[in-house]
């Protein structure tokens, strides 16, 4: 947090900077001098470089940062971007009272990709209770004008949200409605800073007015379908994640004052004069030294850093002891529960109780279904259609989040603009492209090339995604697409090999076709299947299967994510033969284990041919980043391929679950002996193993009821592997509670498989 200006143009009587115990602002420069800004930026960059920090969040704060003016702010923003961006993604924020916000400043914030939070306490009466000028006049009109500016389409990207300080004397319904009327992307509700020395206002006999007041807003918010992100309520949910105010995550905020002093979080100013001080500054002390300061270090200990009362509390993982500053009491320091403890308990109860938990309707998955329900369904060995649909939806959502992260990391481009246009105009086309299994590997590789070694230089995948979506949508567009190995890949559609050197091609999308130009060479590709083949165009090939159409993916470069060589593009006869075998194999799965066939229908969209290896002729693989695809060595026998498909699809499903939940305790070095390998394996590998072997057991168990003479022995073999793996996992003490339940259910499913005789 960078305090770029230490004075304010409002005179709010609830302000912790000026009205509470700490008064150090009086001795600091009004504005941060340019040399201090430069030094601060270099200190942050130095830390990012030395520690490989991927993202740095910098909040311009005050006082009132807009008092710096547009020119002053531009200098600060330019300095920060120039110093930090070479080393880390820089997430720039600014918190303001909004009074001085104008169009010029909005343009500046859009230009520098700064997200702006505005303080507003609710309706006019609520806001005027505290947020007034020194002469007592209201700031309400100016703040609302600022919010209207941020809402404009051209500024909307810079609208971060609203900070509302709670006052229980205000009408919660009117406050809620006033906040929603400003259409903020997010609302942050702030408990007024208080300590045991100076407890919060509690008018009337109610001992927990803040719980009641916030509980009322929570109920409205739930009833309205959670129309806006409200940080407090989201953070207080089970597993909702920590914030500075809640949760047990280590404190990771430092403040740089206008004189270059390093300070701890500025809410500490409410405790006592000088409470946030460290005695260190950006001129002489790097970040690492500040982090070792006792006041910062003590806040890295999670639950161990809390008082005995909090450590023994059943909801300590929810509130995390509350905001550090709110624990202050002269004599015992910060070794106390929050002064808001009764209110936080009441609020957590309110969040738990509303809405009341309801079981999902039969055959329909509820988005809020608990983890146990999802895992119990998958622990049958296969999983229902609705569970598969949910997993596929979460995978698509993760891909969209990665796409947004790329935009965040690398800035807006023509391809991004085209994608967001198509997302509005033709969302189905964009979704069809983003659901392609190899989009996520492309985005992960772009964000961190080291995460997927072997894929070579990280190219921007967005132009090719935009072209694919535009072609599907029939929307004319032109973008430059980077070349890899002399070709451009249009995900889901094919590859175009282009002649000559060049780093990118200009691609123009037209009705049913596209043109690619590199230098003086131009290629036109028709997507009409009845048209003559287009020069250099290698279209994808797919085959009909009961679940729809299955892509034989042998062109997309990001398919090379399995840790073993993939086959280059198959010759036409080989592709046709593999297609026939895959279609037959899918039917075999339907015949043997219809529930597993339904699970395949729910998400398997592509098969990647692996390169042949005489030493290991029958291989298959799944990649965590490529849900919807499996890789196999082409094999002519559909009975064999059917087992591989079932086996690999188990890994894909469980991988999608592991994106959401920890089933294995993280950070343990446990290794487990398993019957299917000579070397001890990590618990997650064993978990994947037993889940796949359970399904294979079910396949062979079913075949044992037919004339297959080998089936019973195979079923017994895989059953023994599964049983031994399950028992070893449960004995290892390496599973989370959810993991133990899941594996326990797998054991039950295995017993059912034996008893049920297929």
């Amino acid at each position: 947090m960078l305090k770029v200006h230490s004075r304010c143009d409002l005179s709010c009587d609830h302000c912790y900077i000026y009205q509470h115990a700490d008064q150090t602002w009086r001795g600091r420069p009004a504005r941060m001098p340019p040399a201090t800004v430069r030094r601060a930026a270099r200190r942050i960059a130095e830390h990012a470089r030395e520690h490989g920090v991927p993202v740095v969040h910098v909040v311009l704060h005050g006082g009132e940062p807009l008092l710096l003016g547009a020119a002053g702010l531009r200098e600060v923003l330019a300095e920060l971007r120039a110093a930090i961006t070479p080393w880390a993604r820089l997430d720039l924020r600014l918190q303001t009272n909004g009074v001085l916000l104008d169009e010029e400043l909005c343009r500046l914030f859009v230009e520098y990709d700064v997200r702006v939070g505005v303080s507003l306490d609710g309706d006019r009466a609520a806001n005027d209770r505290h947020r007034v000028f020194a002469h007592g006049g209201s700031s309400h009109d100016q703040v609302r004008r600022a919010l209207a500016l941020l809402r404009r389409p051209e500024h909307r990207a810079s609208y971060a949200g609203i900070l509302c300080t709670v006052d229980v004397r205000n009408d919660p319904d009117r406050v809620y409605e006033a906040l929603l009327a400003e259409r903020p992307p997010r609302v942050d509700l702030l408990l007024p800073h208080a300590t045991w020395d100076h407890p919060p206002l509690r008018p009337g006999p109610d001992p927990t007015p803040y719980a009641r007041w916030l509980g009322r807003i929570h109920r409205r918010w739930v009833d309205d379908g959670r129309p806006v992100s409200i940080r407090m309520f989201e953070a207080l949910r089970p597993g909702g994640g920590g914030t500075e105010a809640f949760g047990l995550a280590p404190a990771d905020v430092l403040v740089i004052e206008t004189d270059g002093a390093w300070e701890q979080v500025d809410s500490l100013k409410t405790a006592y004069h000088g409470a946030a001080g460290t005695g260190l500054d950006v001129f002489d002390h790097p970040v690492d030294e500040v982090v070792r300061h006792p006041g910062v270090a003590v806040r890295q200990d999670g639950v161990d850093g809390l008082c005995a009362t909090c450590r023994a509390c059943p909801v300590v993982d929810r509130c995390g002891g509350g905001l550090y500053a709110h624990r202050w009491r002269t004599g015992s320091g910060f070794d106390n529960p929050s002064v808001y403890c009764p209110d936080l308990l009441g609020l957590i109860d309110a969040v738990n109780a509303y809405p009341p938990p309801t079981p999902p309707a039969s055959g329909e998955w509820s988005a809020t279904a608990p983890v146990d329900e999802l895992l119990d369904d998958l622990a049958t060995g296969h999983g229902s259609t609705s569970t598969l649909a949910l997993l596929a939806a979460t995978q698509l959502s993760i891909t969209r989040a990665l796409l947004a992260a790329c935009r965040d990391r690398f800035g807006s481009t023509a391809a991004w603009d085209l994608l967001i246009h198509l997302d509005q105009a033709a969302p189905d086309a964009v979704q069809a492209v983003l659901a392609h299994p190899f989009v996520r590997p492309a985005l992960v590789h772009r964000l961190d090339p080291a995460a997927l070694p072997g894929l070579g230089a990280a190219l921007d995948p967005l132009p090719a995604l935009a072209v694919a979506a535009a072609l599907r949508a029939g929307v004319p567009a032109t973008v430059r697409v980077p070349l890899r190995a002399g070709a451009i890949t249009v995900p889901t559609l094919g590859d175009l090999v282009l002649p000559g050197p060049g780093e990118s091609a200009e691609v123009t999308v037209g009705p049913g076709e596209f043109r690619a130009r590199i230098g003086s060479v131009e290629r036109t590709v028709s997507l009409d299947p009845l048209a003559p083949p287009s020069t250099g165009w290698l279209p994808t090939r797919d085959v009909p299967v009961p679940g729809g159409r299955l892509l034989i993916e042998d062109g997309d470069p990001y398919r090379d994510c399995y840790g073993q060589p993939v086959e280059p593009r198959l010759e036409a006869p080989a592709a046709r033969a593999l297609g026939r075998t895959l279609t037959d194999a899918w039917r075999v799965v339907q015949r043997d284990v219809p529930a597993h066939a339904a699970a395949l229908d729910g998400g398997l969209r592509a098969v990647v041919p692996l390169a042949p290896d005489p030493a290991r002729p029958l291989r298959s693989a799944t990649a965590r980043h490529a849900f919807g695809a499996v890789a196999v060595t082409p094999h002519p026998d559909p009975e064999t391929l059917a087992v591989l498909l079932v086996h690999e699809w188990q890994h894909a499903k469980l991988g999608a679950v592991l994106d959401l939940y920890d089933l294995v305790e993280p950070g343990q070095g446990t290794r487990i002996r398993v019957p299917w390998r000579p070397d001890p394996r990590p618990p997650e590998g064993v978990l994947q193993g037993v889940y796949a072997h359970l399904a294979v057991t079910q396949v062979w168990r079913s075949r044992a009821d037919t004339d297959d003479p080998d089936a019973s022995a195979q079923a017994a073999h895989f059953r023994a592997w599964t049983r031994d793996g399950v028992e070893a996992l449960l004995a290892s003490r390496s599973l989370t509670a959810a993991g133990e339940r899941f594996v326990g259910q797998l054991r039950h499913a295995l017993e059912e498989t034996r008893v049920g005789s297929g």
Partner: protein
Amino acid sequence: MDHAPARPTRPDLDDLTRSLHTPLERITVEHADLVEAVRRRVVTTGSVPSGVVAVAAFNSSI
């Protein structure tokens, strides 16, 4: 306003399903915590806890 992203250990199921209804353009603003959680959980170079199968060519890992 607390501008720092929340520190979720994993993408939240509810956020994931809700974000599908958010236009791409607004995901980083309206689902900042989700984007951060996905970034931390999915883009995992060098930070994969012991015992986790990270890249998951599972058949060489199980």
